[in-house]
């Protein structure tokens, strides 16, 4: 065979014929593209789509407001304690709550603004305690003044404020504030752990669901309903006409289904398995197409254990049949062979079908197998980068040669 230079493949070219191929079915190109998108998402860590599905973290202001009732409760308890000692129950309660609110807003606000992280060490505790110490006199003074205004009691000015009794109350405020902060921080930690658990559960669920969808798409991509129903129709016919051949065909169908279903669950397979699946597929197509299809598989024994991503050959072999030989009146032959070139594995799918066709006018077009080839190419790029290639070349006198080159990996 004479092989002219490679032709650039136009991925977007659509089949021109209403019934010529899978790319014309309900969802053009979705089946393999979907798989690809998922595969690459997996490689990228899948982080962004999942993050968007998790609940958004609560804002700091909302967290501050949510913790405020706790501080009021603590203040009320302290006020009750002071009230027991000194009387003036109502006054003490109001002033104490006001002091508590101010102190808490300053200290917890500072914590949320500057030290809002899960793990705490001395580096976080020390400035927080300093803030508490600094906030206590401010809170006490402010609380006293505002409380006095509300209750109509005379309150000390800043000049007459410092007395030993008030200083002890400031100290008491410090203790109360510290207590509140410790409580709030503890509550925060518990809540954070709960949230993380829930998020982890949700994330696991999402990943599982996505993996399941990916697997479903892989399955759909491999077993095209049209192919399956046509095969079943043939089987149905053979049962009445030639039961022995029906049995053979059923064996091939089972082998094909088993091969494709089992490889779908793993990310890579061996050449031996892939060739077995292709043999079964071509065998089934051979029964359907009768004398119009012959096929040959050439796998050197030393390459049987070579590894390759699953489903890499399938679209190429399917293309050779669906776009090359099935629409050709006389049919022809498909040859699939593997070889080694340097440290690369070379797999060729060669058919004598209708071949590459040029579209009208300007652009290089494909006869409709752009989807299969372009998804295979995208996959190769995602998996191997520059180290893998795929090319399509016309074959003389008629036909197409698809050549895959990828790094040789033997188990």
């Amino acid at each position, binding site marked *: 065979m004479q092989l002219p230079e490679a032709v650039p493949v136009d991925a977007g070219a659509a089949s*021109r014929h209403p019934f010529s191929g899978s790319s014309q079915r309900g969802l053009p190109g979705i089946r393999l593209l979907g798989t690809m998108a998922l595969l690459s998402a997996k490689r990228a860590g899948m982080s962004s789509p999942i993050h968007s599905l998790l609940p958004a973290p609560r804002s700091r202001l909302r967290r501050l407001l949510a913790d405020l009732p706790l501080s009021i409760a603590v203040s009320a308890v302290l006020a009750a304690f002071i009230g027991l000692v000194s009387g003036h129950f109502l006054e003490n309660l109001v002033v104490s709550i006001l002091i508590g609110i101010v102190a808490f807003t300053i200290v917890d606000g500072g914590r949320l603004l500057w030290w809002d992280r899960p793990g705490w060490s001395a580096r976080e505790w020390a400035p927080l305690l300093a803030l508490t110490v600094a906030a206590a006199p401010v809170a006490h003074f402010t609380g006293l003044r505002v409380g006095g205004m509300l209750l109509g009691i005379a309150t000390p000015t800043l000049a007459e404020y410092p007395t030993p009794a008030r200083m002890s109350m400031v100290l008491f405020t410090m203790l109360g504030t510290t207590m509140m902060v410790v409580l709030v921080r503890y509550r925060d930690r518990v809540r954070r752990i709960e949230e993380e658990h829930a998020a982890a559960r949700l994330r696991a669920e999402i990943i599982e669901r996505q993996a399941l969808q990916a697997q479903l798409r892989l399955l759909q991509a491999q077993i095209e309903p049209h192919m399956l129903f*046509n095969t079943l129709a043939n089987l*149905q016919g053979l049962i009445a006409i030639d039961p022995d051949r029906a049995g053979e065909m059923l064996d091939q169908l089972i082998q094909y289904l088993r091969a494709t279903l089992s490889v779908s669950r793993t990310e890579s397979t061996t050449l031996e398995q892939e060739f077995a699946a292709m043999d079964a597929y071509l065998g089934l197509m051979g029964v359907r197409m009768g004398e119009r299809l012959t096929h040959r598989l050439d796998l050197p024994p030393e390459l049987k254990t070579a590894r390759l991503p699953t489903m890499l050959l399938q679209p190429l072999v399917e293309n050779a049949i669906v776009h090359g030989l099935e629409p050709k009146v006389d049919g022809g032959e498909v040859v699939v062979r593997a070889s080694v070139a340097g440290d690369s594995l070379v797999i060729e799918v060669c058919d004598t079908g209708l071949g590459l066709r040029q579209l*009208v*006018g300007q652009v290089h077009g494909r006869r409709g197998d752009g989807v299969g080839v372009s998804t295979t190419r995208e996959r190769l790029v995602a998996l191997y980068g520059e180290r893998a290639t795929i090319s399509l070349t016309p074959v003389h006198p008629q036909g197409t040669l698809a050549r895959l080159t990828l790094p040789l990996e033997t188990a």
Partner: protein
Amino acid sequence: MTRALIAEDEPILAATLAKTLQGLWPELEIVGTAPNGLAAVQQALALRPDVLFLDIRMPGQTGLEAAEELAERWEGPQPFPHIVFVTAFDDYAVEAFERAAVDYVLKPVSAGRLGKTVERLRALVDARHAPAGSVADAESLGQLLGQLQALLPAAAATGRLTTLRAAVGNVVRMIPVADVVFFQAVDKYVNVATADSEALIRVPLKDLLPHLDPDRFRQVSRSMVVNMACVISAGRDEMGKVTLNLRGRADKPRVSPVYAHLFRQM
């Protein structure tokens, strides 16, 4: 005796359909099976069956195209055959068939479903013994095909052509598409005719069609696409055949019954 032709590229399916039909309709004579869309037309023209089972996906041409070609080439006193399309489960065309009320059976063929089709076909064949025009039959088929063609998604056009490049000797002539009166398929070439010239381009008509403005250029037969702005009149002879008068051209292209509805009075 009713005669049937089966066009199906998968030999086992053809044999199965024949066998099932024999069981359901013993008086039916299967006169042949055609392995592709081209042979389907040849054999139908040669064997003149009453019923034609046409697989949709066939090499050569699809069942729809075969029906279209047959409608165009069918002549003579025999009525046009009843066509039953055979299609695989997931062909989206099924919905189109339902809407267009075209007879079809699904693969794998169930005897029950095929039995209903056979009943309907028997009634139709019986009704035919009363005299009826074959052209009318072809026309009704033509309308159905027209509906189908409208329902099936057209090939994605990758851009409209505005100028054609046609090699004439050593010169490449640039022909504005707007000047073209008609395109005529000649083997693998297309003859581009303007009011004062003709040139061949090496593009199948089928591939050219998606690149033309569908409002301006209409297919009038399998081999002819006409610039509607250049149609002066359409004449109908006593056989019901429609021919066109074109501006600036002496040719009088014939309109296929499939497309005759384009030139019916309003």
